[in-house]
């Protein structure tokens, strides 16, 4: 007797899923043997469900004779006498029904279903597993049922494991929209609700969504059980395709989770029986999307910076960028050393001056960032986060300058000419970056810068102004250059904003339409003298007195020419990027005094205002040139 011991099969280590993998019997006898031989076989092997008879001339090569059928026939009157001496195949022919023959490839569930459709008399008969030319085996029905039971148990365990571990939220709702048992564990974590089996799903959602989302969810759940709707054509109105769920975090704070719900209606016999709900936690995706958007904005800003840098005056840009970088470094130190805000007038002054330079160079991104920082410079305490936008700009500028240098190094000039003008200009800037001395000489650079300041400011304030330069200086120290550049820039900007009247008003008071700012540069007697004069409205004494805290008609109030240098004095009615914070002439004077010089005012109401600056050609011993 052979029995296909499943432990010898190559796939025996896993739970059987096909009937060919189950333990079966292949006891085979010739169909012509007498019934008593079969009786002897069953006597010796009582556990056999039957024997396989090999037919010499039959329609099929093998038929099965179950022990039950054999005994049924043998116990009939004269059974042993009749069948004991006749060929065993006749017992099969006498039988009212044949054993079911199935392929070894048939799965256990299907085979069981086929067997269970047999009538009650034959329900427990074995199954003939037909291997075709390779023979046949008999499978006990009890073995089949037990294997089905093991398989069901395994599947239940597997399902449990899946539901415990699957990251997706999976749950089933019945027709009444109640949660069926056996949902994935991750749903509880996603919703922040535990053990909600048998609850109405709308109630579960109401516990974790805001009231409006919960209301929409409730409506949509009712839509899902409406048979008059087309499954795929209601997905677009799913209000839960992305919803925010607020949950307490481990640290006690409330965190937002972004969940995506999908619903699938399960039909049986055309009727909606269940609804499969899948939930995905998209928090990470949403965070990545936001990070991507931020990165995109940064890239856009980098592009703007590139465009502005490339379009800026290539002579002054390196100077500005080196000043900007140094300012950032000093601002960082000021924050770390706790000398911020009111304690650090010099820093405020530099910020203001840099902002003016940025405006002149058309670097609006830099101007905006410096303007925002200026607001923060009046706060009592500094924070390194204040500098983040400026550091980003600095990094971008430095990156782009490096890129420009590489272009410059790798390309011949004729190639550069063929390139986009912006990139070519960037290369020019990059080549000049870090070089403090302007290529055209300090005096021309100085004039050009002031012209640019005046032109840009006048445009923004709708004024018409002409610059006139007089004289020149022959020896300009680097430190003086920086001081005068900063101071004159501020004075010229002030002249445009506060001094020069709008064209209509000038005409109304009998002045030429175009205002004039005159800058005179002289070197004499060991001094550098600079005069910045405008033919505007002069100083408004009443306004300046009030701004400085004096009564408008106070006879003891200092002269307007003195008041204008007061700390925090501003006559601008609104804070703009150009004026209004009272950070201006007080710092101009401080800068001049710091450089060992003096500044004086001459003015006449309605006619002019002039600032006279005197700086020694030689720097005082204490001066430190920190550029």
């Amino acid at each position, binding site marked *: 007797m052979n029995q296909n011991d499943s432990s010898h099969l190559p796939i025996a280590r896993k739970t059987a899923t096909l009937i060919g993998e189950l333990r079966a019997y292949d006891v085979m006898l010739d169909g012509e043997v007498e019934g008593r031989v079969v009786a002897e076989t069953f006597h010796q092997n009582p556990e056999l469900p039957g024997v396989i008879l090999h037919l010499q001339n039959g329609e099929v090569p093998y038929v099965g004779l179950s022990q039950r059928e054999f005994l049924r026939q043998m116990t009939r009157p004269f059974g042993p006498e009749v069948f004991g001496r006749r060929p065993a195949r006749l017992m099969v022919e006498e039988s009212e029904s044949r054993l079911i023959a199935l392929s070894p490839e048939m799965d256990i569930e299907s085979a069981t279903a086929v067997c269970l459709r047999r009538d009650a008399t034959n329900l427990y008969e074995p199954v003939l597993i037909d291997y075709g030319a390779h023979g046949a085996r008999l499978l006990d029905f009890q073995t089949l049922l037990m294997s089905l039971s093991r398989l069901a148990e395994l599947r239940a365990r597997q399902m449990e494991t899946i539901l415990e571990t699957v990251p997706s939220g999976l749950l089933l709702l019945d027709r009444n929209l109640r949660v069926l048992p056996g949902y994935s564990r991750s749903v509880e974590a996603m919703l922040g609700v535990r053990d909600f089996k048998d609850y109405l799903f709308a109630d579960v959602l109401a516990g974790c969504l805001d009231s409006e989302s919960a209301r929409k969810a409730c409506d949509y759940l009712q839509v899902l059980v*409406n048979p008059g709707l*087309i499954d795929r054509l209601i997905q677009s109105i799913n209000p839960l395709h992305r919803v925010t769920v607020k949950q307490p975090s481990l640290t006690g704070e409330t965190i937002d989770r972004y969940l995506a719900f999908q619903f699938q209606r399960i039909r049986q016999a055309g009727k909606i029986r269940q609804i499969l709900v899948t939930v995905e936690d998209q928090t990470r995706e949403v965070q990545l999307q936001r990070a991507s958007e931020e990165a995109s904005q940064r890239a856009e800003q980098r592009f703007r910076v590139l465009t502005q840098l490339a379009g800026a005056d290539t002579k002054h840009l390196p100077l500005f960028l080196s000043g900007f970088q140094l300012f950032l470094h000093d601002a960082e130190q000021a924050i770390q050393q706790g000398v911020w805000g009111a304690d650090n007038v010099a820093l405020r002054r530099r910020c203001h001056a840099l902002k003016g330079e940025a405006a002149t160079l058309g670097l609006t991104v830099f101007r905006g960032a410096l303007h925002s920082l200026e607001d923060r410079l009046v706060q009592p305490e500094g924070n390194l986060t204040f500098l983040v936008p400026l550091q980003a700009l600095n990094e971008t500028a430095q990156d782009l300058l490096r890129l420009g240098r590489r272009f410059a190094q790798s390309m011949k000039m004729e190639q550069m000419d063929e390139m986009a003008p912006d990139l070519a200009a960037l290369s020019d800037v990059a080549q000049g970056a870090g070089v403090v001395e302007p290529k055209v000489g300090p005096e021309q650079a100085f004039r050009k810068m002031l012209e640019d300041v005046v032109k840009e400011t006048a445009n923004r304030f709708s004024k018409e102004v002409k610059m006139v330069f007089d004289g020149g200086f022959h020896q300009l120290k680097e430190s003086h250059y920086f001081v005068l550049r900063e101071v004159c820039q501020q004075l010229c900007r002030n002249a445009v904003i506060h001094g020069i009247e709008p064209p209509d008003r000038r005409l109304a008071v009998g002045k030429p339409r175009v205002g004039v700012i005159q800058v005179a540069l002289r070197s004499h007697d060991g001094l550098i003298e600079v005069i910045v004069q405008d033919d505007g409205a002069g100083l408004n004494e009443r306004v300046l007195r009030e701004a400085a805290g004096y009564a408008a008609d106070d006879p003891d109030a200092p002269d307007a020419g003195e008041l204008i240098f007061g700390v925090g004095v501003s006559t601008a009615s609104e804070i703009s990027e150009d004026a209004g914070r009272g950070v201006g002439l007080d710092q101009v004077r401080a800068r001049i005094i710091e450089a060992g010089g003096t500044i004086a005012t001459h003015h006449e109401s309605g006619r002019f205002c002039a600032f006279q600056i005197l700086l020694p050609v030689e720097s005082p011993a204490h001066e430190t040139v920190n550029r």
Partner: protein
Amino acid sequence: MKLLIVDDSMVVRETIERTAHRPEIDEIYLAENGLCAVELFKQHYPDLVTMDLTMPGLDGLDCIEQIRALDESAAILVVSAINSHDTAMTAIARGACGFLTKPFTVAELNEALGELIAFRKGE
């Protein structure tokens, strides 16, 4: 099957019409507003309707209601820029079977028409 396309935009009507030329559809009717749609419906009793919601005169929601009163079996697809949950719920309550949100691609429209036809056939 007969299809009635209701939309006040000629571009949308013609886009749907072009896409709707398929073996299952024998006749196509076009209506540029709700009143015209109801009249055409009474004459031809189409099996399928694509319905815009925002139209002058009789709007889509009212039009769905009137068509549903005439024929319970017509399959009505709302083709509109659905930006309100409550509007969608009202459309369903009045008898819409599904939604195709504007703007749509031809592939999406084609797929939606396929679903609508299958639904009408009872598949």
